[in-house]
């Protein structure tokens, strides 16, 4: 019996596969996950003993659920497409970085650069996210139930960052068109990031994101403030021509 067969044990429900990272290599798990397609019968994967390993369930490309029991290391669920990845623990640097679509749910804290460069899908973090959350996000939606660290949404281009707690220094520095909603305090705004009026359409958008995150009604939408780009940095300006 090879390591992969030892690590994978089917439970009575044919659609669920259990994989123990204490007994088989991470590469075998990721290779097995990468083989999945929309037609695969194995649609629910339970992963035990992640022990902070890097790139767990990165590069998924099928509508399956991967539930990981414990803390994960760097780049968990990176580049995710279609899949739902649940982390029952903390996540290291770059969770769901460059996610294309799907849903990633971290039930603890996330380290730096959560959701970095994400193109689509939703990342929900139950705890705090540290620095650079949503850096260069390009369409992903990120909902953080705790607070985010400094330089969050740096150069964020599209998508929404919703923070139920506080934001650290230099929120939204060099921001493009991502929409930022923060319920608590903001230590400081980055260059070209300003507070903007919260109109009905923005409340509706925020409600939509909270609904997708499964927490509509748990917080008062009226408590959020909206931040966006002043749009003075990214348009060509003739006075700055010598700088280009």
């Amino acid at each position: 019996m090879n390591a992969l067969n030892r690590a994978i044990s089917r439970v009575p429900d044919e659609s669920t596969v259990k994989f123990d990272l204490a007994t088989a290599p991470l590469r075998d798990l990721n290779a097995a996950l990468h083989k999945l397609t929309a037609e695969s019968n194995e649609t629910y994967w339970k992963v035990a003993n992640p022990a902070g390993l890097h790139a767990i369930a990165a590069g998924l490309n099928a509508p399956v659920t991967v539930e990981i029991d414990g803390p994960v290391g760097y780049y968990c669920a990176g580049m995710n497409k279609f899949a739902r990845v649940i982390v029952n623990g903390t996540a290291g640097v770059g969770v769901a970085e460059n996610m294309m679509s799907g849903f990633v749910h971290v039930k603890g804290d996330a380290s730096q650069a959560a959701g970095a460069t994400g193109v689509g899908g939703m990342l929900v973090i139950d705890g705090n996210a540290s620095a650079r959350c949503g850096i260069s996000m390009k369409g992903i939606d990120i909902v953080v139930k705790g607070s985010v660290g400094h330089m969050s949404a740096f150069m964020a281009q599209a998508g929404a960052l919703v923070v139920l707690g506080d934001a650290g220094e230099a929120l939204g520095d060099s921001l493009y068109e991502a929409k930022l909603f923060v319920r608590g305090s903001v230590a400081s705004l980055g260059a070209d990031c300003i507070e903007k009026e919260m109109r009905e359409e923005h409340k509706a958008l925020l409600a939509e994101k909270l609904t997708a995150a499964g927490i509509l009604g748990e917080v008062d939408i009226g408590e959020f403030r909206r931040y966006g780009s002043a749009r003075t940095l990214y348009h060509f300006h003739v006075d700055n021509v010598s700088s280009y």
Partner: protein
Amino acid sequence: MCGIVGLFLKDPKLEPELGAMLSDMLDIMCDRGPDSAGFAVYGAGTPGFVKLTLRGPAGTDFAALGAQIGHIIVPRDTHAVLSVPAVEEMAVRAALARLAPELRVVGAGSRMELYKEVGLPLDVARRFKLETMAGTHAIGHTRMATESAVTTDGAHPFSTGPDQCLVHNGSLSNHAGVRRRLAREGVKVDTENDSEVAAAYLTYRMRGGDSLGEALEHSLGDLDGFYTFVVGTESGFGVLRDPIACKPAVMAETDSYVAFGSEYRALANLPGIGTARLFEPEPAKVYFWDRAA
């Protein structure tokens, strides 16, 4: 890149396991720093005595040297520990310099022992039998060299004061200037390594009356660059990250211990980790755990 590990025990029952726990943590951080490794362990001390950690070339006959100076020297591979009455410390150092000029005193203090060598971290730990060491707290480092050569001198921890040591992940950009400033103040930095400058800076501040916490606060203004520091003293350890938190750090606290790792992986095998409070130290915030507190 580099990896840092640290362990501060609250539960005395774990003290015999300190070295084994740290050895495992160092091994896991090998891929962050396979060039060299080192560690400082705060073990038992004898009141009125100073422990000197010596380092010599391979094959150094420490026993014969001990007989010559009239003290027992306990060898561990290329290093050895010598416990002498504090009042005799200067005389013993002078005798060592005369009889064995090739030896270096790499650490001194009432409880600290310090070991470092070039090589894979697990190999280094095994050479010194880290897994057999007991103590209240310890810090370790796996090095991927950037600012100076891969040599034993360039390995961490650096000790520049009694029972004080520092490990560093990152690189300092103003170490040459700080080195000149320290030289003017009469503080000698032995190597070309940027991290030793940070250690010497903290020693200089504490010599002037700063607590470790105050010295770390001052370093935020005076040291420029990327850093996560873990600093050991006789009574505990401190943690500081630069204001933009360039280098990683994860901590775990339980009723039994406080543990530091560059990554969570380093903490994954610690007892009770599943229910530990896990957190990332915030940038530019000084953390300190002290036995006396």
